[in-house]
């Protein structure tokens, strides 16, 4: 249950447009080529990395266990983290929802007199739409992760949790750089990276505040850890005089020792690396003024709907997510439509469960249905989140409208027919005689819809599911006689 005074929100949300966005994505052959490439490559790399780890399953189980231990005692561990972080000299801030978080960051930036803000990749700041708020306040947040920077220049949202600009080709990026940065057009990837290095170096040097995400926060030491490959997070947290880490309440792990298993799981699951190029573990600001690094370290801890998921183990699991992106790469739906179709900064299977739970199911009621429930996501999840089970849980909430979070009247009305159909179906299926009679009628009627011709065209109009099926597939005609009729006959003659 959410705190009544808060309004959890995900920025730039268009999750209810999934049906249209998905169709648009299916028509975009460039996008689909890029998607096949990224999902195949990440998928293969992950598989190879996992195959080389003998205790993989035991590690997943440990990670799940540690997350469940943490989340079911979150008040305790969060208190411990805050106490230890403050003892180490970190300034700790809290925000109930996205709006409060953005305004807290804006106030901090203003207090620091910050103009340029160097940001390293953070899904949480994407979730709260921080850049827009800072820009509206006249500040200059600069995304410094290459993919995030490309997205920022293009005015788009990320399409993959760990490879945010993967929907763009090098040609499109070449055009973007030429237009936005007024550099000579090149589609050489090495050159494009050099351009990014040159431009962003200046931002790091100018920045008065560096903002990073947080991959793990450790309760017993008050430390937090950031993983990356590019070095932009290290620069963002080393060059500016202040460093702010933004994290959701769920990023905690209890013990420093617990890091080991997560450091083995996360890179392998995400990119198939045995370790990303850099891990930085921050514990407080520099010890003496002579040292390097920021004078002040701040942490902003965000709720934004998360605490409402703690009460039930089914929903609580979603807070165990470590944002590796593995479920995206194996999802047959994501592989076809990509991240933008989900209309949320959190795409793919995990996005389909996180988005409606944080923002409210009425704002993302199409997403839990955007899955064939194949279960590939559950098999790769490094913390063993049962995503299909969560999808079913959310489907149940949506079709019955028994919130929380509440479902609007419009949804209920729209689903009235489907609901009546399933009610009738349940009645027919819960008695053998009724079932036989219904089956007899169905077998007489169904072939009319299965045979192309005028009758099928009319039937398709009358029955949208039939129309949807036959648009791309033939319908198998019902058998003239049911199995049970044939069985009775066969057994009679035995």
């Amino acid at each position: 249950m959410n705190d009544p005074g808060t309004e959890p929100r995900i920025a730039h949300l268009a999750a209810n447009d999934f049906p249209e966005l998905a169709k648009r994505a299916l028509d975009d052959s460039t996008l689909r080529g890029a998607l096949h490439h990224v999902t195949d490559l990440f998928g293969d790399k992950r598989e190879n990395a996992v195959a080389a780890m003998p205790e993989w399953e035991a590690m997943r189980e440990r990670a799940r266990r540690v997350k469940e231990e943490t989340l079911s005692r979150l008040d305790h561990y969060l208190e411990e983290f805050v106490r230890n972080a403050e003892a180490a000299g970190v300034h700790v801030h809290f925000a109930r929802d996205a709006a409060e978080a953005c305004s807290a960051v804006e106030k901090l930036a203003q207090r620091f007199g910050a103009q340029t803000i160097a940001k390293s990749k953070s899904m949480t700041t994407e979730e709260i739409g921080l850049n827009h708020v800072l820009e509206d306040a006249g500040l200059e947040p600069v995304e410094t992760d290459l993919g995030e920077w490309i997205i920022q220049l293009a005015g788009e949202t990320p399409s993959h949790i760990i490879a945010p600009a993967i929907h763009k080709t090098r040609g499109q990026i070449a055009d973007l750089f030429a237009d936005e940065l007024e550099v000579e057009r090149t589609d050489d990837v090495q050159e494009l990276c050099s351009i990014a290095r040159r431009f962003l170096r200046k931002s790091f040097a100018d920045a008065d505040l560096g903002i990073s995400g947080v991959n793990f926060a450790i309760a017993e030491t008050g430390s937090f850890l950031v993983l990356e490959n590019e070095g932009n997070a290290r620069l963002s947290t080393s060059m500016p005089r202040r460093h702010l880490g933004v994290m959701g309440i769920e990023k905690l792990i209890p013990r420093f020792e617990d890091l080991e298993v997560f450091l083995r799981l996360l890179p392998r699951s995400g990119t198939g690396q045995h370790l990303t190029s850099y891990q930085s573990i921050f514990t407080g600001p520099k010890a003496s003024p002579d040292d390097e690094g920021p004078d002040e370290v701040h942490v902003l801890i965000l709720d934004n709907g998360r605490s409402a998921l703690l009460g039930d183990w089914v929903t609580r699991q979603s807070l165990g997510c470590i944002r590796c992106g593995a479920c995206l790469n194996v999802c047959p739906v994501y592989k076809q439509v990509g991240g933008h179709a989900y209309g949320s900064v959190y795409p793919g299977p995990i996005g389909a469960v996180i988005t409606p739970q944080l923002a409210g199911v009425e704002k993302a009621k199409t997403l839990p249905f955007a899955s064939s429930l194949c279960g590939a996501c559950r098999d790769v999840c490094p913390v063993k989140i049962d995503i299909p089970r969560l999808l079913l849980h959310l489907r149940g909430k949506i079709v019955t409208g028994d919130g929380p979070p509440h479902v609007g009247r419009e949804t209920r009305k729209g689903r009235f027919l489907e609901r009546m159909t399933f009610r009738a179906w349940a009645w027919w299926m819960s008695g053998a005689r009724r079932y036989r009679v219904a089956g007899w009628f169905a077998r007489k009627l169904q072939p009319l819809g299965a045979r192309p011709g005028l009758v099928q065209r009319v039937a398709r109009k009358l029955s949208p599911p039939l129309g949807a099926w036959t648009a791309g597939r033939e319908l198998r005609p019902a058998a003239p006689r049911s199995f049970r009729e044939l069985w009775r006959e066969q057994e009679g003659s035995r």
Partner: protein
Amino acid sequence: MRVSLFVSCLVDQLWPSVGLAAADVLRRAGCEVDFNDEQTCCGQPAFNTGYRDEARRVAQHMIETYEGDTADAIVMPSGSCAAMVHHLRELFEDDEAWRARAEALAQRTFELGSFLVRELDVEDVGARFDGRVTWHDACHGLRDLGIRDEPRRLIANVSGAELVDVHSSESCCGFGGTFSVKYPEVSVAMLDQKLQAVEQADVQAIVSGDVSCLMQIGGRLQRRKSAVRTIHLAELLASRG
């Protein structure tokens, strides 16, 4: 071994030959086979669409039907229905008595191919089929019940059949129950990507353990005027060439 055959509503209405073939194969493997006429559906269509009350009602009918049935095992030519039976307990989270009854049913319920190999230790049922075939791992059999090698071993022992494993064998066919009609374009796109590899493999047939997948795959192949056929595992194992 006395086996009660649960054919599933789809086999009963659309694909009765699969049920007859399953009975034949089980008998050849030495089982005494019965068909309980009270059976209807496992409840999965409602369960997977979110209609838990409706699913529960059908599930209760299913549980009651087989409580009155003294067979040693309930065998289904469907990994999806068998997996559903293993999920039934989730419908009775607040009802200990029904949950126990659901669990008792799950204990006695098996998918056909894995039943032959794991429970009966039978890998060769004396079938003959001439041609190259490939196996489609239906998602729920594969990921909920861990069925991977069993059907492959059974197919490998069909004389004349050559099993070609394609890299897309484990990808979802895009059916997903109501998903296939809620998002038909996405559903078909998923299948088309899967079929690319199958078509390159130059096989005569795709074999699977679930008629729902075969309905999806076959419906698309037919629309694309493909020469590749769809065959249920039971039919392949019952085939005499």
